[in-house]
């Protein structure tokens, strides 16, 4: 079934902005603090935009090598929200 776990919590995020590089990774979260743990990202799955009315939301699908995280950055309120995650161990080998 659907392994997505809904979180919807504001989180602290450290972001890296690059001067050069691929369009997809010029700006990407580096790590976040969630439930007392510091989670370092190793891969940007996908970055895309969406809207909430006319508010621009940047969606970052990140991976720490095991779990996948959907982070949303609200460009109007400048806040980061961890919207959902998929635990990597859900998918069995």
């Amino acid at each position: 079934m659907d392994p997505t776990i809904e979180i919807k919590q504001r989180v602290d995020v450290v972001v890296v902005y690059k001067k050069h590089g691929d369009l997809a990774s010029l700006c990407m979260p580096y790590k976040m603090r969630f439930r007392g743990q510091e989670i370092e990202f190793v891969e940007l799955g996908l970055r895309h935009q969406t809207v909430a009315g006319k508010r621009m939301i940047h969606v970052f699908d990140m991976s720490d090598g095991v779990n996948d995280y959907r982070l949303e950055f609200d460009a109007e309120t400048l806040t980061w929200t961890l919207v959902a995650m998929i635990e990597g161990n859900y998918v069995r080998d």
Partner: protein
Amino acid sequence: MYGINHENAQIIFCDLNSAFAMAEQQAHPSLRGRPIGITNRLSRHCCVIAASYEAKALGIKVGTRLDEALALCPDFVMLESDPPKYHHMYKQLARIMKSYSPNIKMKSIDEGIIDFHGTTEIVNNRPLEEIGFEIKQRMKQEVGSWMKVNIGIAPNRFLAKQAASWHKPDGLDRIDHRNLIDYYKSIELTDLTGIASHYEARLNAAGIFTPMDFLEASSDTLRRIVFRSVVGDDWYQRLRGYEVDDVKTKLGNVGRQWVLKKPSADDNFILPCFQYLCETTGKKLRYQGVDTRGILVWAHFRTGESWYVRRMFKTTFFTDADIYARALYLFNQRPKHMVIQSMGITCYQLTPSARNQISLLDEVNKDEWLTTAVDEINEQYGTFKIFSANALLGTQIVKQKIPFGGTKYFELLLKQA
């Protein structure tokens, strides 16, 4: 011998196969290489609208129900669709394609055509295979490493699409006068885009059983016996690599349909949903900048029977209230004891909008201004922030599907996301 077009191939067809599943696997590294499917709304009876290659290899395809998929593969993962993600893929593909030729046409959310006619010498003095490989590479670099594009190169759109489907996934093929016969000898009739079981039966009835038989048939046979219209002439040209599909389609009608999860005859349930269908149709009309004069409403019943009624009105209209009032008048003529399985509304006889013309009648102006004000608020805060109170239940139950066939309403859909 067959009158095949000897022109150099100038069309590239790009096809993101299993696009939605691939987008989810790109976003979620933990799902890569796994059988996954996408559905519009997750439920016990939902079905797959897009399957990953890994799922397809297990026999899970579009239309497979979730319980069937889990029986085939207990580890099968089903995700709900995420239209903004797919729109992003679409925009990235279109952006990359546009960098090679100004003449591109997106055929749907996951495929498009680059026409190099008139540009090859000036813009891209390179073999199209080289450009094809570059497009694949750029999708991986600029969108994500999991992205795979099938590329087809041919003298016309039809053969380019055939070439893109030849070696999936991640294929790149050329079909032209040099290998066209060998290609036709290697495939079945239903491998041809546009030939499904219905057309296959027609062709079989005329003694045509293979693509080679199809190619050998005269235009007269195709026009008079098989297709009984100019469609036969088009197929005669299309099979030989001549372009007949570069045509602009006119907006003929606008509508919305819905399949009920639980078939019902209860007006308290059906009418709010019907009103919601009318309001989404109204939004589509205004988004396209057209007014309508004709309305058709229909229903399919659980018994397998169908019903419809249509009517042309004297004047054009476009407000949600006008559409619903007229549609409801027609919808109330249905056999009310019948249990509805699916229903829909279609507006036809569309004309460019005349709504900037102020009416002499204040009532008319008030209705139009109200519609404009509601549209503006919804534009600002998201579609269906304001809607008719009667449609409340409908907004909660009816879910927007992803438009596979076209992309003309995608921006509108995204505002709802």
